[in-house]
């Protein structure tokens, strides 16, 4: 199951968008949590601030992009280099049940939280049963 020993920063193996910036693109690790009236999407985007994050919704696709510049000079001689630094990009297919007009996002401590409200008709309903 999930624990901190299994975390690895993934580079994107394919890109759905044109590469507009040099360097590696990474796939952020995400959690998707369903609640009664919304979906919560949490994405690890360390190094990104609100102004670096671009979220687009178009034709059922939600695209997250967090631009992260290299923090060190190109010629830095690393004694140990276990991860790379670059933009985070990930695209999600969003189902009919989500209301695209009410997608909200916030970032704190390098974690992006996207809140996707469900359409009222997609919410679970409790049906009252009457005695006939």
């Amino acid at each position, binding site marked *: 199951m999930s624990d901190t020993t299994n975390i690895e920063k993934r580079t994107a193996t394919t890109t759905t968008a044109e590469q507009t910036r040099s360097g590696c693109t990474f796939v952020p690790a995400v959690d998707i*949590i369903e609640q009664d009236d919304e979906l919560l999407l949490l994405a690890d985007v360390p190094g990104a601030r609100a102004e670096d994050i671009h979220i687009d919704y178009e034709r059922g696709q939600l695209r997250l992009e967090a631009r992260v510049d290299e923090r060190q000079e190109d010629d830095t001689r690393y004694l140990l280099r276990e991860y790379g630094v670059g933009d985070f990009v990930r695209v999600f297919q969003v189902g009919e049940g989500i209301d695209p007009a009410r997608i909200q996002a916030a970032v704190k401590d390098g974690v992006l939280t996207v809140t996707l409200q469900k359409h009222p008709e997609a919410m679970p309903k409790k049906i009252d049963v009457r005695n006939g």
Partner: protein
Amino acid sequence: MWPARNRWGVSQRNALRHELDRLFDSFVERDPFAPVATTRPFPALNIWEDNNRLMVEAEVPGLSLEALEILVQGNELTIKGQRRPAVTESEVYHRRERGTGEFTRFVTLPYEIESEGVEATLKDGVLTIVLPQAEKVRARKIQVKSS
């Protein structure tokens, strides 16, 4: 080095599956192509040297400085911490890639550190630790006297 190890052993067809994660339609099914996680130490570290001091950087999104413990003794650095789940465990997760739990990372550094001078900063989920080399191990210029 990171570029060589960032391979999940997935074919191109499956790679596309990662790009287009389905967010709502298929929330009942489990992702059959979910990569098998490899066990790696957390957090991953980048270490470099800068003028008689070592710089250690780690990506620890979602952690506060209070949730981290940094210990330096001699030439040994220990980073301990805990990342808690954002919501209660009982929630319905359709995807869960962000690890949680306790971690300890232990690193042997190339030289002894002046533990009094160690500084750690945390910004937007990026931890940076500055570790000055201990005065006693710094190379000294030896004056050569003519006899």
